[in-house]
């Protein structure tokens, strides 16, 4: 079990790197969905299994994050007709290198924040920080509005993982609230992207700063 957990955690990190390194938006959406699924599987391998009520809540959260939200983003993708991010603000190789830097940073921070359980869980804190940092990095380093929504989703994945790592007093209720917020936000963002695209024929956010009223 511990070995499987370790492999899943490594897989999470690799999925983050895939997000940083790929230019195809469809693949990005798929990666975010897969990441949510892996995070949903993690608590099942934990030392003690959650109660059925919490399990049902987790299943619902995982379903929303790995099916509903990517579906919404995919619809926005289809409507805008954007296939890939051609000119990111930061190139893909450089993004992966930055990701390595962020990983080292999270690792160093994670050594200060040791979990009491020990074992494989030692990796959970760095992975949580790394996922959140990756989400933030995607938001600032990419040009298309869709990738920024994805960065937001990755950030949410990181926060959810944080909740799993520190599940001391069953904070699932709080997380469900966060999830609802994110659901609403992605919904609104999907509509906004659609409107932006219809108005300006592109969704490059860095060109918004040149607008005058």
């Amino acid at each position: 079990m511990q070995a499987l957990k370790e492999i899943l955690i490594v897989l999470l990190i690799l999925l983050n790197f895939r997000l940083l390194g790929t230019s195809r938006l469809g693949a990005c959406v798929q990666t975010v969905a897969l990441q949510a699924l892996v995070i949903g599987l993690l608590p099942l391998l934990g030392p003690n299994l959650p109660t059925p009520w919490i399990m049902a809540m987790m299943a619902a959260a995982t379903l929303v994050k790995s099916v509903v939200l990517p579906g919404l983003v995919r619809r926005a993708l289809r409507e805008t007709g954007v296939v890939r991010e051609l000119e990111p603000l930061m190139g893909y190789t450089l993004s992966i290198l930055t990701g390595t830097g962020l990983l080292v940073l999270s690792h160093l921070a994670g050594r200060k924040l040791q979990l009491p359980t020990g074992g494989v869980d030692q990796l959970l804190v760095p992975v949580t920080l790394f996922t959140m940092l990756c989400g933030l990095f995607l938001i600032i380093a990419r040009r298309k509005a869709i990738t920024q929504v994805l960065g937001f989703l990755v950030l949410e994945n990181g926060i959810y993982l944080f909740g799993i790592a520190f599940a001391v007093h069953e904070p699932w209720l709080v997380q469900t609230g966060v999830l609802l917020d994110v659901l609403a936000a992605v919904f609104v963002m999907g509509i906004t992207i659609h409107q932006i695209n219809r108005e300006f024929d592109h969704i490059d956010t860095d060109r918004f700063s040149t607008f005058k009223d």
Partner: protein
Amino acid sequence: MRWGLLHVLFALVSAPLLAGVINRTKAFFGGRHGPSFFQLYYDIFKLLRKDAVYSRTTSWIFRTAPPIELAAVLLALLFTPLGSTAAWLCFQGDLLLVVYALGLMRFMIISAALDTGSAFEGMGASREAQLSALAEVALLVALLAVAAFTKSFSLSAFAAQAWAAGLVWPANAILPLVSAALLVVLLAENARLPFDDPNTHLELTMIHEAMILDHCGVDLAFIEYGSALKMWILSAILVSMALPLRASSSLLNFATGLGAMVIVALLVGYIESVMARLRLIRTPQLLVTAGVLSFLAVMVAMR
């Protein structure tokens, strides 16, 4: 010790055979018969019988590079284990010696290529320098990950100590990470397909072949043989890291190692058959990803 010596002799004799296996695998996938397994031997013997011709623009660097290159790769071979069979010579820290003996080999080839003053060779040299700078990080960090896990800095000790420390296949995330990183390094360092097409002779796209365009005769034979040995060394390192099995008898260890080498050659042939060459600007990204895998292995090993 005796088995280590046997490995060195075996490598000296059968290193060019790996290229034969790779080519036959590719031919099989292409539905062709393919060249003989011993084609590289024929090529090398043909070249050894020929005289070298030197351009007037070249200097002593061009002439001294092939022997130094071969010597460096032979030095690395002495310290390379094969699977669980320890190398002939070993000491704490020999992994650095092996990595930088290969680095010296690369440096000599690049200097000789620049020494010819040819535009194509300069292009090949620049590409080789770029790729190998990234590959070196991935290789070294991958080896350091295993070193951090086994608390030993000797290549020969890795397989034995990894087995003792519980580094077995399905149970640990380090092994797949390190194996994947080393496989990418193996492909990049030996100018295999996703990085460089060994079949093409179009100067604009090739890397390794572009650097040795002006070599001929004995010099080219040295370089070809050195490249074959380098392929053997990196495959042996991959086998040693990826397959820390320890059988009870030395003979069985040795035979398993050799079998794994053939499997690596088949795998390389398979990869070459099913993959297209990456665009030149995409190749650094793949190598950086291999470096990331190595870093991740270090992180898992040091937690």
